[in-house]
């Protein structure tokens, strides 16, 4: 009897492992926006890669700070929670990464950011309706969307890989900081690093000699 039970248990275990394997064979990867990126444009690209036949829910959340404020309703003062956009304009990609790490559980205590404040978890406020994308192809499928007219703030792009029951089986998330578009873009140091290096100059000289 116990032998039979053991066989059934082994079979059940194998079945569970196979199912789990099927469930997690599919994977979702957020290609764009790049992890912890910063942009000063009011639009950005969302690109999600799904590895096999699968369904995913793509959601965008704006990160807001919960603030308790007093309101007077019918002569009575009550406290209500309002969600405001925190001023994160001075943050750098590494600061966004610090917030992301806190969110994903890589760290439990927020690091000190370049604005002197400690990274904290904000509240997810849905930005538009989530989209369900189904990759019907056997191979890789790509979901793309350009988000336009985005207000400055911190956003979280989240992808839930949905199981057959419609519940999230796995998730991927990334943060992007949208800054105010400057009226005049400041001069960048884009070309300062490798202008006229010795090797290039030598290459040009040699090229001209043997021309």
């Amino acid at each position, binding site marked *: 009897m116990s032998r039979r039970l053991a066989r059934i248990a082994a079979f059940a275990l194998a079945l569970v492992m196979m199912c789990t394997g099927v469930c997690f064979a599919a994977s979702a990867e957020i*290609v764009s926006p790049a992890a912890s990126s910063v942009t000063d444009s009011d639009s950005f690209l969302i690109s999600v890669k799904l590895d096999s036949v699968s369904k995913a829910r793509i959601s965008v959340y704006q990160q807001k700070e919960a603030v308790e404020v007093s309101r007077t309703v019918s002569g009575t003062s009550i406290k209500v929670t309002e969600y405001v956009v925190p001023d994160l304009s001075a943050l750098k990609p590494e600061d966004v990464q610090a917030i992301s790490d806190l969110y994903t559980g890589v760290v439990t205590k927020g690091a000190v950011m370049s604005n002197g404040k400690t990274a904290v978890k904000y509240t997810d406020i849905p930005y538009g309706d989530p989209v369900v994308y189904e990759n019907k192809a056997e191979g890789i499928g790509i979901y793309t969307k350009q988000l336009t007219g985005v207000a400055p703030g911190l956003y979280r792009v989240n992808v839930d890989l949905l199981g057959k029951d419609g519940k999230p089986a796995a998730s991927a998330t990334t943060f992007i900081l949208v800054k105010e578009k400057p009226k005049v873009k400041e001069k960048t140091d884009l070309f300062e*690093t490798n202008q006229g290096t010795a090797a290039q100059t030598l290459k040009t000289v040699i090229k001209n000699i043997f021309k």
Partner: protein
Amino acid sequence: MSSRSRLIEHAKSVILVVLFIATILLLYLLWGKDYLRPAAVTVLRGQAAEVNESLLVVPDYVAYGSGDGSFSLADDPAEAFAKAVAQAAGFAKLSSPTLSQITREQYRAAMTGFESVQLSFRYALPTAQFCEYYGLGKFTSSDSSESFTCFGFSEASPESIFFKDESSGSCYRLLFGEAPASLSYRFTDAGSAQYYYCGDILGGKADAMIALEGESTLQAGRMLTELEADPMLSTEIARAAYGDTFDFVRRLRDGFGTLTYMYGYGAKVLTCYTDGSFDYYDESTGRGESRGFFGDLKTAADFVEKCGGIPKDENGGLAMQLFGAIRLDQGRSSGYVFGFVQTEDGVPVLSDRGCSVEVEVSGGQVTRMKRAVIKASDISGDSREVMQPANVLAGNCNHIYNISTNSMLSVEPAEAYAYVADNVRSMRMGLYEQEDLGTLTPCWIVLSPAARFFFDLYDGTPLGFDLIGD
């Protein structure tokens, strides 16, 4: 002898000398000019057909960057190209520039992170000849950057013109002391479709510009070869190719119906195949000098116009574009092999055989021409949504990988996907010629370093490919 008769004798001698010199000069004018002229011109004698070769040089696309990584493409690349050249000419009037090499990442950052405009060609243009041909003057050190496939302007450095050579992977910028007063990053109207670098969508390094989504009015149409449309074309092309020597040309027809015109002992051969394609071959290597990219292009274009004609659109404009150019350097003779592609409704028509017309110009004369031009009909219909380019690439990554790497072994999808995300060079709409079926199928034309692929425009299924090598 009296002094009078001696004077007459002297005058006679002078007249004889003058007559002798005049005879030599006249003989030189009569024969000498033809003798010195390259043989290609003899071939071209007859009905002179002049083509403005600059009309064949049209960018693959003109992309206006909005600074957030997205681009919109100019509706009329030829018009945008003319305006970009005028802007570059404005730079040329400024102080002498300095040329410096920049990294591919810097070039990409300048085009994606800032307002920008970039013009991309399917072939490499020689920088110095380009500047000379379009009246841009001679930029200092411009000859250090031998050729380019892209050039553009960016808000990242308004006082610069940027160049990129896709074949060598080199990027340059010409830095001037200041920017022209009328600097612009948008020359013409652009379509509403949003384009991104392929690598940004798929997660790789590929520089192909692909749309997120799109629509098209292209539909499967019918085609006739030009020989089916005009059975006398073989004779016309032969008359044009052989010129005055046509009366001395042998005409042979084999059992398969292939018609061959031969001059001498195979010195010049024109073969007219039953599938409507033509192959002209002149074994004499050019005695003259190569006239450079644009000079040789004119020679090629004039020859094509003369031998069969360049396809025209309904407004009389050229329905053909330069699609490829390979520099030849074979000892004494140098030149180019030009590939021209026929356009219908503004999109290229291609097949597994490659370009519609291929012309080899060596030593200043046409030494080979392959021609397979078609007449298309019923290729336009209602507007429909096309299959998303990113999904065409992702769904066919194993096919692209196997053909491009010449490996039929199965490979992990992730490896094939990474190859595609890093190596796709171009992805554009077009028409795929299925000659055996007599049909034209709307397609995505995808270029990898080793092959050109055709995928159905609406469902992404593979239609064919053409190996091109690198």
